[in-house]
């Protein structure tokens, strides 16, 4: 006991070995996360470098066909990028209006009790496994859309994109709601004092003030959509093509990785390396979006809105 008192009372003294050992062990746990990032970057860079020793960067960025699994190989990334952009765009076009309106309702109109019940309920949508969403897109949404849109293929970007929009809706609703809720009450009161109606206050004062936070939520939603795998793998098809037609089968970057992983492509071959090149592109895209979203949210926290 005496030693204990001394060790904690005398903070200048070197701490006992056991204490330092524990600290080192805990630091080691924290370091695992840094090693994970390092591992991801190392793996992607190494395989990407090996890929570009065989395929020129010009082909990768210049070719408009992606057929690494065929006899006649083309390595143009753009069809996969187009597929990803198309499904993500449809997802955001679905999620943004719904999510933002829901956020406005929760923050500006709903009573506190309603808000406390509805917000977690909306967030349940984000917890549904994506393979379930994929099933829903393929067997429910697409047949429904086919009744309205003739010529809609069984696998298409539209159904997958809409369902993906439902999946990312909670991110947009929840983060936008936080941003709207954080707008100081005094701003609303000032607007009312100036004779503004409730609607005018929402559209002219609250929304413009919260625009950074809403932007951050949208970018994060896009990032989630870009990295989403199972919905598009199940319902959007596996045919890489450079098109923005939402009615036909396409292939996203994530779907390509799944497609190759399901086959048995031997390690070390060019085909095997393509999934890491695609993974690298995916990683860079999402990193860029996450950093942008982070930057916008930081601006909100610093109070530097508008």
């Amino acid at each position: 006991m005496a030693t204990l008192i001394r060790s904690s009372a005398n903070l200048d003294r070197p701490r006992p070995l056991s204490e330092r050992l524990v600290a080192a062990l805990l630091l080691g746990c924290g370091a695992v996360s840094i090693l994970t990032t390092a591992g991801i970057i190392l793996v992607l860079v190494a395989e990407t470098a090996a890929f570009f020793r065989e395929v020129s960067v010009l082909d990768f960025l210049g070719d408009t066909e992606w057929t690494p699994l065929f006899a006649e190989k083309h390595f143009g990334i753009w069809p996969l990028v187009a597929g990803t952009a198309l499904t993500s765009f449809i997802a955001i076009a679905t999620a943004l209006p719904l999510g933002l309106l829901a956020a406005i309702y929760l923050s500006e109109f709903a009573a506190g009790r309603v808000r406390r019940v509805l917000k977690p309920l909306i967030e349940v949508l984000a917890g549904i496994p994506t393979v379930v969403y994929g099933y829903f897109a393929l067997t429910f949404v697409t047949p429904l859309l086919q009744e309205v849109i003739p010529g809609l293929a069984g696998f298409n970007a539209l159904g997958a994109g809409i369902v993906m929009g439902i999946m990312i809706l909670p991110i947009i609703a929840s983060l936008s709601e936080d941003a709207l809720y954080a707008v100081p009450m005094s701003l609303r009161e000032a607007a009312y004092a100036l004779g503004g109606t409730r609607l005018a206050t929402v559209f002219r004062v609250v929304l413009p003030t919260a625009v950074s936070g809403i932007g951050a939520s949208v970018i994060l939603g896009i990032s989630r959509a870009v990295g989403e795998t199972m919905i598009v793998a199940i319902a959007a098809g596996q045919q890489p093509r450079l098109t923005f037609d939402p009615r036909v089968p396409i292939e996203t970057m994530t779907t390509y990785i799944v497609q190759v992983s399901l086959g048995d492509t031997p390690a070390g071959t060019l085909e095997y390396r393509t999934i890491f090149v695609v993974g690298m592109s995916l990683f860079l895209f999402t990193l860029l979006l996450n950093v942008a979203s982070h930057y916008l949210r930081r601006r909100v926290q610093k109070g530097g809105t508008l």
Partner: protein
Amino acid sequence: MIAPRPTGGGPAGPRRTAAWAPSRLSPERAFRAICVLALVLPLALLVVLIGDAVVDGWPRLSWNFLTSYPSRHPEEAGILAALVGSACLMGLTAVIAIPLGIGAAVYLEEYGRPGRLTSLIEVNISNLAGVPSIIYGLLGLELFVRAMHLGRSLLAGSATLALLLLPMVIMASREALRTVPHGLREACYALGADRWQTIRRVVLPMSLPGMLTGIILSLARAIGETAPLITIGALTYVAFLPDSLRSPFTALPIQIFNWISRPQAAFHVNAAAGIVVLLALMLLLNGVAIWLRARLQRRVTW
């Protein structure tokens, strides 16, 4: 928060509302109705989604379905291997991720002095949380399956999922640690305890309910993860139970994906039944988390 309702019509009321007599069709009411619709529509879809799976899968749900191996004949196929695989996978993932996650959280909250290293770890964790799960699959494929020669095994799958889960576990644990009042730590130091004793005897026991709740919720999410497991090469047809850490495996979401990708409608029924089981498992885990929080919170009072 309830914004004060502007008084329309009265002498002090805003001129713009006066133009809109407070009738049933005021633009505010209309806008409000649209907002409510935007909120109800996704919730209705959630009900439809679950209802659709239950209706589709109901005919196949039986004890046989839970206790049979996959088969070429959809009526005879079951999810035994997938269910046991998922259970083993989750258990092993928890064993790897929980100590690492709590350790990292304790370091960041209790030991790490504000400095370059701590903020590097913090920024890194928030970045990792945004990395698509399929990228973790690529890491697992190269690191665990190939470099560490674990093969496409249960251990490789669990390790991959553990890395994926780690940011969530760390964040949940940190949040729980922050709820322990600072005064308690100081009281402990005043009694002569050193830092590790304070953490082990006071801080950890008090924050454990919160930690466990967060960890179980992230496990509930991990049980539905499909993409990283496909990437590391989990099998889609397994007619045996895993018997060791090195054994090949399949998991419930992978079995579901496998059935969805078949053209025959009969297999889609199996997929729907699998989905019902998966959702029930997740609901169960979420229920356990909530129950645990309510139960353990009662014991800890200050």
